[in-house]
């Protein structure tokens, strides 16, 4: 944690977001697959949950952190296995663009519900 460059920030972000995601993601999975059967999580279930600002915030935080954490992980993997700088840049622009679009879609889904 001594460094201050972008990679040190990335390292710290992965650990901090990871710690939060352990709770958010596992709780989300448990609620939608263990506590409730997946068949029960229909429109009515979602509407009931999203009536509460708490669960909207919970789900949006999960959306944002999981996307950023995953995108940064993919960036690390691409950096390790794709040798050409140009190919890396193009690949990350594509995956980043897709993630950005899905972040917008997910945000609109939660906020506009």
């Amino acid at each position, binding site marked *: 944690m001594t460094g201050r460059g972008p990679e040190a920030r990335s390292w710290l972000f992965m*650990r901090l977001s*990871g*710690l939060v*995601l*352990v709770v958010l*993601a*596992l709780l989300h*999975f*448990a609620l939608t*697959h*263990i506590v409730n*059967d*997946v*068949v029960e*999580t*229909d*429109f009515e279930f*979602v509407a009931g949950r999203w009536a509460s600002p708490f669960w909207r915030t919970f789900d949006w935080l999960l*959306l944002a952190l*999981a*996307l950023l954490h*995953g*995108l940064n*992980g*993919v960036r690390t*993997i691409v950096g390790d296995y794709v040798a050409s700088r140009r190919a890396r840049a193009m690949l990350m622009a594509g995956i980043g663009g*897709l*993630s950005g679009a*899905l*972040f917008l*879609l*997910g945000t*609109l*889904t939660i906020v*506009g*519900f």
Partner: protein
Amino acid sequence: MRTGGSPYRGRGGQWAFVGHRVSGFLVFLFLLLHIVDVSLVRWPAVYDEVHRLYGNVLLRAFAVGLLFALLFHALNGLRIVAVDLLPRAVAVERALLRAVIAVTLVAGTAGGVVIMAPFFAGAR
């Protein structure tokens, strides 16, 4: 696992590294799909129709796989944080990895039984 002059020998820590990447990547791919399927909630009838598919045995098995990937990635991530931050964790790093695997298998199997149960009970 030994290729060319690689110093890596495929011992526990390296398999954990591979498993962390593979599980993380798979969960990321699922996340992208999941954002799209939840966005259908704007059209309740369409959402419910697509949603009924999740009770299918194949998609239940898929959920069990997702649970194993999530558990391993989450627990191994905690192991990584522990090894990074707590000097004492380094000494027991191997025991920590065994614990990660054990808890993943036990919790994943228990969760898997709950997820698959409705199928075996005949409710599709």
